[in-house]
């Protein structure tokens, strides 16, 4: 029914690694003269910390622990999509029902 603490930490570290990797790729591809160079160090440090945490908890090498943690994070994120879709469906339902009514002159 529940997950143990090390598994919880692995998943959190995977999530941090995923968002930090996304930020690094985003910073690198959108690099321009207006960028503040300090900003890119935060995701690099986060990536390093999450790799270190995963290595300590799973006793694997840096490359495999990094790919494992990101893979588990992507799979977990994908499994949450039905919840996002359910929220969107309710919002679309409201838009369909509430906004397709004729609006009177007195309506605000």
């Amino acid at each position, binding site marked *: *029914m529940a997950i143990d603490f090390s598994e919880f930490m692995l998943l959190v570290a995977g999530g941090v690694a995923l*968002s930090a990797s996304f930020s690094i*790729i985003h910073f690198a591809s*959108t690099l321009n003269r207006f960028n*503040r160079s300090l900003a890119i160090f935060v995701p690099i440090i986060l990536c390093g910390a999450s790799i270190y945490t995963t290595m300590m908890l799973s006793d694997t090498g840096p490359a495999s622990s990094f790919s494992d943690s990101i893979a588990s994070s992507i799979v977990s994120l994908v*499994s949450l999509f039905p919840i996002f879709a359910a929220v969107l469906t309710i919002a679309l339902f409201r*838009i369909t029902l509430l906004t397709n009514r004729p609006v009177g002159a007195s309506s605000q």
Partner: protein
Amino acid sequence: MVVDEAILWSSLVLLVTGLSLHRMGPSFHRSRFGFPLALLGVASFFLLPENLGDPEIEVYDSIIALVKWVAPFVLGAIIVLRSSSTYGEPSSFGLLLGWSLIAISWIIAYPEHVSVSSTDVIGASSSLLGILLGLTLVYIGVSFSERSVGLESYSDPLSEEEGELVRTILLRRLGGDGHGD
């Protein structure tokens, strides 16, 4: 096998790079490479990998399973929004078509997600917590670095030609006779 795994991760990197470049906007010339790069990433993700390792095959299968029902859902949502009076031209046919696509997507998704256990939900929530934590820390770091560095230089004042262009745009948008009336 290693090559296929590298192709899978490279395709995801290409996709994120393409989206980032696309979001840079037209003032940066390289933004025009965004869409082709993202398309290349999607194509290489779906077409090239064959013999993948354990973590990569999980990623590949979960994304393929996701696309099967998210694609009709997104298409249906776009059609519903464009057929509602708030966001487009009201159309009963459009609403019917959009809601049919959304219903089809739920019919496809339901059997795959009906047996979700509480462990899966806790695991997914832990991962989401990590993602939100990472994004929050990156946001704090970016805002700190933006505040710590002052203005490098002030921009030059508008030239005569630029001032005339701004005046024309404002007159066209706000009206008036150009003399404050």
